[in-house]
């Protein structure tokens, strides 16, 4: 079964191919079957392959499909590499992807571009699978750009509205900044190792570099640039909130569950390099910590349901970066998986709510949906609880708690990381339940027009089950000490060694974290249910800060000022295009000579003979002088 690994990305690819080629001629039902079915097959196959992989007991499995190209010492094959890390990622991608495909069948059923949507979505799944299964960095980069392309296409899916196209371009261009850094990093890696095979690089790196070598640090920073762009971390985070212009399933699949965590995958995959570059690793943590706080604050003030979730995604990926920054690789991957479950759930729930209310995005015009949409309410509540990390019963608690603990107790951790993470957890609880309370409680402000069907509720229920029980595969020391997940990854990713004399404090920290989460929920309850006046007062008294956070710390304006304006200014300076002058001149000259030579075309034979004679004389004269 293992050797059918290549089929996993192939199924979605074939699906995309069929839908692109004949999609417009297929009926919706057939298109849906192809679109969802191909990912479903991939998910089934992933299960089978994963089962075989676990039974076979090998540490890694490599499958070479064909030699891609071999030029000037760079030999790249189209090869897939399966190890525990990529297994987890393909499991999440195919499984969550499949659920979201099912959901999309109903969500998009009225849309004109039905087949086109599934074609893009399948292509995305294919690219993402290539990304995580890639055996070498070139193939990884192919997948990396492939998901970027699909993200662009899907954000701008409803392209008839100009602002969607703008959001799509913004996402594409900003991630391009990071991708360029990453590409430079790949070039440097190649110039040092003469290969781009990931495993070769990882085995050679410790022999070539000693820890802290400047070259390692530079490369680590460049790769981090790519990861930061893709994962919407500071300073390239501004595209993700705008990316919510795409359909909700897209936000769930691409901009929450899978693509934006590609940066986490990249850094985890290249963790050896980061361990050789402590400075870069520290910065991974710093970026994560700062991002999670900034994005959390912004999420507090948003009124668009999907933008809250977008900022919360940025913030949660910040947690993953923080975990990687302290070397807690498996915790980052664990949080990635749990986050994929509950954030996909939340986005799908939000999509269902928005669809039920005539595409109403503003939370403050929702309300009172608790009784009208019970299934969505309960599943959304579970997702929210998981995001807010309510203690003991939610998966989010276990994954986030691990990060909190290691940010404090890990060797590379420190008190600042811990405080940032703790504050972030508190803020997360507030904004999560603010969202829940405003949306589902209170008075109904918009009538429900569309009650979601089975295709929407079943994925929600499945994901909510995962959001609860997914956490129990990895329990902390204090609560049962069950380490299935980290054991699974232990061969591949080093575990964190703790600082001395901190073991005893674990339960205290867990207590604080749990308590803070509950406090956050309670505060949200006080502000938005019991006495909404307080929230209004706070809002009006800190109007400036509120606006500031609403605009995402005005980073857009800052970039506008720092990059866009100067660029536009420079381009106005060069409005007449100096370089173009040269070409215009060329054209003018051509036209001039054209005019001259047209005159010579008089139709009078004798003038032509005259021309020939003059030419002959000139040639003879020149040859006389040149060669005397």
């Amino acid at each position, binding site marked *: 079964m293992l050797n059918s690994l290549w089929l996993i990305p192939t199924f979605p690819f074939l699906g995309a191919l069929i839908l692109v080629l004949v999609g417009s001629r297929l009926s919706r039902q057939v298109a849906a079957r192809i679109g969802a079915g191909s990912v479903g097959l991939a998910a089934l196959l992933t299960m089978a392959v994963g089962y075989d992989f676990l039974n076979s007991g090998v540490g890694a499995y490599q499958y070479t499909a064909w030699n891609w190209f071999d030029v000037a010492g760079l030999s790249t094959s189209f090869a897939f590499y399966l190890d525990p890390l990529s297994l987890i990622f393909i499991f999440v991608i195919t499984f969550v992807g499949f659920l979201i495909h099912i959901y999309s069948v109903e969500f998009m059923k009225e849309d004109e571009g039905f087949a086109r949507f599934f074609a893009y979505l399948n292509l995305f799944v294919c690219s993402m699978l290539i990304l995580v299964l890639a055996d070498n960095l070139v193939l990884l980069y192919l997948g990396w750009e492939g998901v970027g392309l699909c993200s662009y296409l899907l954000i701008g899916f409803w392209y008839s509205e100009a602002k969607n196209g703008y959001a799509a371009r913004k996402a594409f261009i900003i991630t391009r900044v990071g991708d360029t850094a990453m590409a430079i990093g790949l070039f440097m890696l190649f110039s040092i190792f003469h290969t781009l095979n990931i495993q070769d690089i990882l085995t050679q790196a410790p022999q070539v570099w000693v820890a802290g070598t400047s070259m390692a640090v530079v490369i680590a920073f460049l790769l981090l640039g790519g990861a930061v762009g893709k994962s919407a971390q500071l300073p390239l985070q501004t595209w993700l909130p705008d990316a919510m212009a795409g359909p909700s399933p897209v936000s769930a699949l691409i901009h929450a569950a899978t693509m934006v965590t590609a940066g986490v995958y990249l850094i985890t995959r290249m963790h050896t390099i980061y361990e050789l570059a402590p400075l870069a690793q520290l910065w991974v943590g710093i970026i994560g910590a700062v991002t999670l706080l900034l994005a959390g604050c912004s999420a507090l003030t948003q009124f668009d349901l999907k933008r809250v979730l977008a900022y919360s995604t940025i913030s949660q990926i910040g947690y993953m970066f923080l975990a990687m920054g302290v070397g807690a690789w498996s915790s980052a991957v664990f949080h990635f998986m749990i986050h994929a479950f509950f954030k996909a759930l939340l986005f799908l729930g939000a999509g269902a709510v928005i669809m039920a209310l005539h595409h109403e995005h503003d939370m403050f015009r929702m309300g009172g949906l608790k009784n009208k949409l019970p299934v969505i309410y309960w599943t959304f509540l579970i997702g929210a609880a998981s995001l807010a990390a309510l203690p003991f019963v939610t998966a989010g608690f276990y994954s986030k708690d691990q990060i909190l603990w290691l940010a404090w107790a890990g060797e590379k951790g420190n008190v600042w990381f811990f405080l940032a993470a703790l504050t972030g957890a508190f803020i997360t609880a507030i904004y999560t339940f603010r969202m829940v309370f405003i949306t589902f409680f209170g008075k109904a402000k918009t009538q429900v027009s569309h009650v979601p069907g089975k295709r929407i509720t079943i994925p929600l229920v499945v994901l909510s089950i995962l959001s609860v029980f997914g956490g129990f595969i990895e329990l902390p020391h204090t609560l049962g000490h069950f380490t299935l997940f980290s054991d699974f990854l232990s061969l591949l990713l080093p575990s964190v060694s703790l600082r001395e004399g901190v073991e005893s404090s674990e339960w205290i920290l867990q207590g604080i974290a749990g308590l803070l989460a509950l406090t956050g929920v309670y505060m949200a309850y006080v502000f938005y249910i019991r006495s909404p006046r307080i929230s209004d007062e706070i809002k009006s008294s800190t109007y400036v800060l509120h606006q500031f956070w609403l605009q995402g710390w005005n980073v857009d304006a800052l970039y506008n000022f720092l990059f866009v304006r100067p660029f536009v200014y420079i381009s106005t300076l060069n409005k007449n295009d100096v370089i173009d002058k040269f070409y215009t001149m060329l054209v003018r000259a051509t036209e001039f000579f054209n005019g001259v030579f047209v005159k010579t*075309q*008089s*139709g*009078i034979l*004798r003038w032509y*003979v005259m021309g020939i*004679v003059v030419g002959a004389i000139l040639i003879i004269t020149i040859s006389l002088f040149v060669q005397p």
Partner: protein
Amino acid sequence: MKTLPIESGLLLAGVLFTLGLISVLVRRNIIFMLISVEIMLNAAGLAFIVAGSRWAQADGQVMFIFILTMAAAEVSVGLALILQIYHHLKTLDSDAADRMNG
């Protein structure tokens, strides 16, 4: 017989060629232009014969035969064209055939 210097032969060819050239440039009558071209071709042939004589080789004469062949073909096609032009334009003025500006 006294041997001749090569210059005198080539000079004759040059003079004949130049005379033909002047004629082509001066005349407007197409038949005269054709005649002038014949003069020039003949001069070129003469140059070949002189060169062949210089080396006492047959190659110069072979080239003259080729020029002769070409002149014959050229005259036949040229005269056919002249007939057509005269038929259409009712004149032998080469300047009259300038409607195409080509």
